[in-house]
């Protein structure tokens, strides 16, 4: 299913077919009593594929991120890595920093999630040259 999605997304076809895996999974993740329930791995893979689209555009990045933060979860580091790399392709450092801020905010009272995510993302952050909000001093007022 993913390979088909990737092929379609590479061709840049803005059609229902590309978004369909998303729609199906959205329904499944709502937890209906019937139908196949999407596993965590499938969810992660779907979002990684979404952000890994080589010619992703700014709107799709915004839409993806804004949708992702609406879910009751903190995204896995591999999804965030894909999103950060998408920011790099779009030459958008500000959005990359914003994504890190959003992750910290999503963790809410669970203060140990964000440091773990940053630790996992350290190689990517160093490779792409993304500073964390703490390094820039914007984590405080």
């Amino acid at each position, binding site marked *: 299913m993913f390979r088909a999605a990737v092929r379609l997304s590479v061709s840049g076809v803005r059609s229902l077919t590309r978004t369909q895996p998303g729609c199906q999974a959205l329904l499944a993740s709502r937890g209906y009593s019937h139908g196949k329930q999407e596993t965590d791995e499938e969810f992660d893979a779907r979002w990684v594929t979404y952000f890994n689209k080589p010619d992703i555009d700014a709107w799709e990045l915004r839409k993806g991120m804004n949708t992702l933060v609406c879910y009751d979860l903190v995204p896995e580091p591999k999804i965030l890595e894909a999103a950060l790399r998408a920011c790099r392709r779009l030459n958008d450092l500000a959005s990359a920093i914003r994504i890190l801020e959003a992750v910290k905010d999503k963790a809410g009272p669970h203060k140990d999630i964000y440091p773990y995510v940053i630790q996992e993302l350290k190689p990517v952050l160093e490779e792409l*040259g993304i500073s964390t909000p703490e390094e820039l001093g914007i*984590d405080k007022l």
Partner: protein
Amino acid sequence: MFHLAAGRVGSLAAKRATAALSTSSARMMASHGHGTGDTHPPFHQQQLLVSALDKLRQDDRKRFRQVSTAVDMSKPLYTDSVDVPLPDRPYKEVLTDADKSLKQKEKGPWNQLSKEEKLALYRLKFLKTYPEMRHSTPEWKTVLGVAFFFLGLTGFVVWWQKVYVFPKRPRTFEGDWPEKQLKRMLDMRINPVQGISSKWDYEKGQWK
């Protein structure tokens, strides 16, 4: 004064040639054949009203044009929201030359950007950071204070009413009247099953 209205009135007259005009002078005007472009139409009440309204509408439009620019709601707006990390448009869309050159530098490796430059890029795109968005204001103190002030004011008003407005208390509250009233109720056996008389012990002459 009627220059602007003249052409319009003239065409109005032409259009309304067949329409019922109430006064004879109007009918006379129509029959005189005042077509478009006649510079001095005769004084007529309907024309006066129409042209005056036109002028007023034009004045309104001129006045509104001088009012400060409204937000163009047909374009994407910038919003700071913790639920929407990436708003529909960047905060600053009009960039200075320095900003533009910074944007060019952004296209290269980000390792080469200094901390200040990275911060500048962030502030170009976003107005508030997440902590700034989440920061509470002391507005609640003002709200509570004003609410209490008006409650106090109401209390003052009620006291004034007590002194200057309310009539005297009925005499049924003074002296031994309430006591005598109660005795009368008990003698009449008011509410003897579950009410007041049921609480009175008639043999012992006291409350149960």
